[in-house]
């Protein structure tokens, strides 16, 4: 099961990620030309810093959102988690550098609990992620509105440096975000639970039949998503110097992060996608926003452009994918052919998966063919849905 899904994933992932980054290069080229027409340089230090700064916050949120979407759920509570963590951090720090560690720990810890609640509601109470996290978001919003009447707390200078320091034109916050992305990518591709996230999102029943406890990956993904949102909140606290009850909603990070994830080639239905694709999607948004701001596009028109770009970019991407998938029903498009293009590294997880499921009575070959059959079936489902 794991071998097959990993193989399918890696073949697909490279493909989609390449498209995303090609699109990003296209956007950069067009953007650079447009920026040049108003007498500015796209590649100047200040402009690159502006783009990367724009990527950092959304990047954190989108990394978490990717995990949740990969396992077939989604998280609409992120804006409120962001606000809450910025407030908790700023209030605990009280301008004193000695409190930084405690503040970060509390903010991330509370976020983890919120994520745990989301995950339990989704898996144990069988409430769809959309409603569970929408409701959780409203609950946190009620708490924020009742207890905070505006910005609160104070972030010491040492912590503000995270948002203000740069390595050349690259803000430290972006470096941290990319490091978190790296960890998330390693988590997804190198750990058992990471593989299970793909498996559960791809087909929950097959995952369960192959011995995965399907609730655990979903719960863990929700916990990690909320923690990632809290990191975004911490970064915002660092940039603002205070905690703010509205900073999460201001950015529209819920829908924007979902859009960035899908723009990055992750299937909204789950089971397929990658962190690096998401980062590409976030970068596309950041470049787009930067170029529109430099060109002083009317703010209302910005939304129109954003809306069209989201749909058009995803259309280009899904258009390709559907064709590939259709071909599989033809004579030459069977699973055997895909085995050929899978590449050597896809084989690696296979023995691992066999050893991690010692209590599975079925011989591995049967499991594999069953999984293949099911994944083909699921593909047609997903194709028509998405």
């Amino acid at each position: 099961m794991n071998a097959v899904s990993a193989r399918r994933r890696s073949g697909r992932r490279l493909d989609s990620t390449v498209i995303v980054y090609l699109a990003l290069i296209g956007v950069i080229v067009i953007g650079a030309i447009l920026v040049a027409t108003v007498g500015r340089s796209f590649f100047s230090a200040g402009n690159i810093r502006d783009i990367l700064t724009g990527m950092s916050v959304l990047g954190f949120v989108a990394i978490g959102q990717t995990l949740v979407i990969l396992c077939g759920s989604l998280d609409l509570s992120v804006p409120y988690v962001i606000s809450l963590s910025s407030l908790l951090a700023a209030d605990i720090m009280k301008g004193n550098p000695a409190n930084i560690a405690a503040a970060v720990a509390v903010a991330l810890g509370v976020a983890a609990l919120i994520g745990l609640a989301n995950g339990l509601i989704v898996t144990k109470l069988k409430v769809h992620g959309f409603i569970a996290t929408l409701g959780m978001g409203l609950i946190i919003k009620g708490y924020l509105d009742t207890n905070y009447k505006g910005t609160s707390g104070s972030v010491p200078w040492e912590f503000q440096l995270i948002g203000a320091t740069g390595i050349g034109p690259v803000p430290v916050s972006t470096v941290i975000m990319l490091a978190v992305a790296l960890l998330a990518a390693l988590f997804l591709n190198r750990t058992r639970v990471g593989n299970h996230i793909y498996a559960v999102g791809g087909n929950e029943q097959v995952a369960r039949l192959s011995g995965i406890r399907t609730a655990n990956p979903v719960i863990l993904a929700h916990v990690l998503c909320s923690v990632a949102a809290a990191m975004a909140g911490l970064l915002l606290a660092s940039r603002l110097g205070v905690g703010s009850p509205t900073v999460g909603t201001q950015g529209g990070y819920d829908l924007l992060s979902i859009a960035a994830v899908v723009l990055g080639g992750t299937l909204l239905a789950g089971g397929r996608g990658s962190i690096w694709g998401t980062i590409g999607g976030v970068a596309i948004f950041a470049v787009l926003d930067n170029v529109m701001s430099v060109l002083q596009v009317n703010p209302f028109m910005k939304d129109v452009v954003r809306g069209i770009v989201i749909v058009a970019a995803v259309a280009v991407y899904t258009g390709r994918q559907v064709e590939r998938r259709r071909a599989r029903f033809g004579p030459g498009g069977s699973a055997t052919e895909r085995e050929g293009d899978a590449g050597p590294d896809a084989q690696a997880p296979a023995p691992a998966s066999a050893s991690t499921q010692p209590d599975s009575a079925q011989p591995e070959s049967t499991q594999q063919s069953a999984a293949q059959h099911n994944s083909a079936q699921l593909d047609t489902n997903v194709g028509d849905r998405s």
Partner: protein
Amino acid sequence: MNAVKTLVSPRGAVFLLLIVLLVAITIRNPGFAEPDQLMRFIQRVAPVAIVAIGQYFVIVGGEFDLSMGSLVTAQVVIAGNLIGQDESRSIPVLIFMFVFGAVIGLINGVIVSFLKVPSFIVTLGMMLALLGAVFYWTGGAATGNPADSFRQIGRGGIRDVPVLEFIPWSVLILAVVLGLAVWFMKRPFGRTIIALGDNPTVAKYAGARSWWVKTSTFILSSLSATVAGILLVGYAGVHPSVGRGYEFIAITAVVLGGVVLGGGRGWVVAAAAGAFALEALFTLLNFYDVPSTWRDAIQGVIIIAAVAYSATTVRSRRRARPAQASPTPEKEERPMEGATRTATHTPLNAGSAHPEGDKTHNQGGL
């Protein structure tokens, strides 16, 4: 006795919730049960309920429509700016609004069907683009309210009716829309929508023109947003924030009504009841003087609890049918079930024959 059982069962959860809320409101404020107050309440719910009915078609077909709120706003502003104080323009503009709504639905549906873009993304893009375009066109504020005669549709009604005293036009329009929706879902086409949401592959093999079925659900939702916009411009007047958040309210209402996200299961009347329950909740919070900052939190708890309660359907039903041959105690395997279904039912009644299909678990239903 049977009715009571149905109410207490998870399937009837939304109706039970609605009754509890209405009783709680009446206890606090006995005047609420008087006919004219009730009529006013229904008048208020009508736009939300109509949007929820439209969203129902899309959701039961397995998709989302996030552009409904923006479309409501667009229609409200169109009515204000194009009709203005000139009553003679009412009819042409009304026709234009329906055409405009249908075109938006068509665009959504065609992109979802042919370009295979997830409906969540298509309608999210439409939500941004439509709202941005409306603001760009109007400079953020409409010129003013449309002619009073046009606003009567949402604001006025038949007065001096025996017993009821006052029947708002909105209530009649809601009744008509709900009646049409129920009738529509009983026809083969409506069942095809459910079949498509339940299992697209099977529906396709059975010969459903899936692109048209899917697109028509988006057209229906956009038309219902148009109707809601017409009612709201009367009820509240022109303002760029009218319609804000309606997509989420509608989805919440539909899910409260026991309709499963991911498609294939749900009753349109329950979706409308979900809208009533949601509005009754807001009214209750107003009547009980709940601090304004806590309302959202209470709403959050109640929607999670209500959906969790109705989700127990699946578990209880599963326990209730151990006799059925199924490979695992948990659930049948999907491809097998799909195959059985094709063999034993015509897909057109697949939806109604399996109103509680196995969709609840499908978190990948987006």
